């Protein structure tokens, strides 16, 4: 009896060791360089999704795509995702070669769609180690016609869009501050002026209401400061202030216009566009002020609308050529730009992999999602006449 017990114990222990080593092995395989492409992005992890139907199936596959997990035929898959959305979402993630179960969960509450998003985030976290984005929000500008627009928020995939403003005037360039406040510019009182807008209470407060133009707010990663363009001094220049508008500081002083400031994720630098040298170019400057440094974007002319990736590695921007606008990325230190797809106004996802952008003719634009490494694009449904200036909540 004693011998039998020992034998059972020993074999079970061996099994445990085997299971652990498999798990460790799987984790290691994900971060080694062969799983990254030439730019350092994780290559799409091939999975096969089964058991889900209709909306649950398409939402899950779409979520995964923009988190670096791609649905492929069974024989090409390395991992299996099985489950169902009947009643509640239940799902399992299995390593196909070893049959080791990596995830096995059920989800309750919310809608089926929300449960699927939560499952997708769990899968992405398990397979890539990157933060999930399926439960994130975005804000954008929706136009009813020229000169009449509102700020909207929606899920990252465009679902559940809802108006934040009802000014029947011009609003522009929404930016998130945390997950419950937007900062944008509005022509409601002339201006344009910059306001912060608390999403829970609806309260709006001025960030900048100086004489002349107040626009293009960029909120610092810690939410304490706003970089923006003000023309109070007689020319559109770059300024920084605290979120309540106090402590205003002028960072550039040029005759030509500056535009579209964004922050580095450590909050130390600001990247912006300037016509200072004739042609439009991107510059970086210390957030505390200093000498601007040219950011080279070789191969991508007329760069505007920079957006710094949350991991600090890339700056996405819009390049303008004779044939139209392109979404590009360039290493944050400058260099050779990579042209991705046609479109404008990129906004990085929190996972530094997906990008929201817009494309189309003026007053008839549509938002789209882009998986940067694979250049796969999904066009989102349109609200009102024209959607632009997306901002992904980080």
């Amino acid at each position, binding site marked *: 009896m*004693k011998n039998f*017990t*020992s034998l*059972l*114990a020993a074999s*079970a*222990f061996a*099994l*445990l060791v085997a299971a652990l080593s498999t798990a460790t092995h799987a984790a290691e395989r994900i971060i080694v360089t062969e799983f990254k492409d030439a730019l350092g992005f994780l290559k799409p992890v091939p999975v096969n999704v089964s058991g889900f139907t209709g909306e649950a199936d398409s939402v899950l596959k779409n979520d995964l795509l923009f988190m670096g997990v791609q649905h492929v035929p069974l024989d090409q898959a390395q991992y299996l995702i099985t489950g169902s959305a009947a009643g509640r979402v239940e799902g399992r993630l299995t390593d196909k070669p070893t049959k080791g179960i990596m*995830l*096995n*969960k*059920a*989800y*309750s*509450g919310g809608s089926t769609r929300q449960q699927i998003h939560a499952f997708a985030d*769990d899968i992405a976290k398990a397979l890539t180690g990157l933060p999930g984005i399926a439960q994130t929000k975005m804000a954008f500008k929706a136009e009813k016609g*020229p000169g009449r627009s509102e700020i909207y*928020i929606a899920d990252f995939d465009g679902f559940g869009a*809802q108006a*934040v403003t*009802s*000014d029947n005037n011009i609003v*522009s*360039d929404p930016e998130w501050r945390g997950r*419950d406040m937007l900062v944008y510019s509005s022509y409601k*009182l002339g201006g*344009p002026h910059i*306001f912060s807008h608390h*999403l*829970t209470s*609806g309260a709006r407060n*001025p960030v900048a209401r*100086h*004489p*002349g*133009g107040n*626009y*293009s707010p960029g909120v610092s990663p810690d939410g304490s400061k706003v970089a923006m*363009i003000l023309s*109070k*001094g*007689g*020319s*559109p*220049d770059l300024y920084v202030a*605290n979120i309540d508008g106090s*402590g*205003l*500081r002028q960072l550039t*002083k040029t*005759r*030509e*216009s500056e*535009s*579209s400031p964004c922050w580095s994720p450590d909050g130390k630098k600001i990247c912006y*566009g300037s*016509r200072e040298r004739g042609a439009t170019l991107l510059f970086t400057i210390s957030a505390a*002020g200093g000498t601007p440094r040219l950011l080279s974007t070789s191969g991508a002319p007329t760069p505007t609308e920079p957006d710094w990736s949350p991991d600090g590695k890339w700056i996405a921007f819009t390049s*303008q050529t004779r044939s139209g606008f392109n979404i590009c990325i360039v290493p944050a230190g400058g260099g050779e730009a990579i042209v991705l797809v046609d479109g404008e106004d990129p906004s990085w996802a929190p996972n530094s992999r997906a990008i929201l952008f817009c494309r189309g003719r003026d007053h008839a634009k549509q938002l789209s999602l882009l998986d940067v490494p694979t250049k796969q694009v999904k066009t989102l449904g349109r609200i009102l006449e024209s959607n632009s200036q997306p901002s992904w909540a980080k």
Partner: protein
Amino acid sequence: MKLAKSVYLLTVALTLSATLVGCKKGLDKTTSIPGGRNAAIADSGPTQPRDIDRGGIIPPFNPGGNNPGGNNVTGVPGFDPTKGDAGIGQAKGDFTGWIENPDEFANQTVYFEFDKSNVKPSEVGKLEEVAKKMKDAFKGKALRIEGHCDERGTEEYNRALGDRRALSVREKLVQLGLDPEMLPTITYGEEKPADPGHDDAAWRKNRRGQLILLSPPGSN
């Protein structure tokens, strides 16, 4: 000692078996999704859009408790913000309630070259006419300069370019003797095209500085 070790191994084995069985037949755990359809904007229901003119939602702009005009700027080393910017400081007056006349100077709309903000020599004559009338027939009135762009160029880039265009027209009018305090500007970027077309002819009409005559409330 040997017994103790066996008991220990048995415990490990049972725990492990339970875990493995659990993995195969049951669920590790259930994740509860908080909130309703829009958890990110709290549980109090959909955001109610509010009129910013109503309910005193926008308090007077007074950061730091001084300078209601908001001119308390700290400059970077190297220039003195009190000595102005590269251009002429903005009109600080409030022209809310002034009567707008967009027709008076409709023929004096200033047109710009693609991606340029300088007033072309061929457009200066229009501004000379405007300046003459403002100094004479329209003494005491103000002029709002609206800067516009064509659709080529990104939205916020064009907002800045339209701003720069309006300010260039204003600088020219100041050179022609008008009071900068009576020349407020506004940029519309590409928001309000004069011609909704998508060709050269439309773009030419859209790259413009429009002049709106403003009369004090109660005047005619």
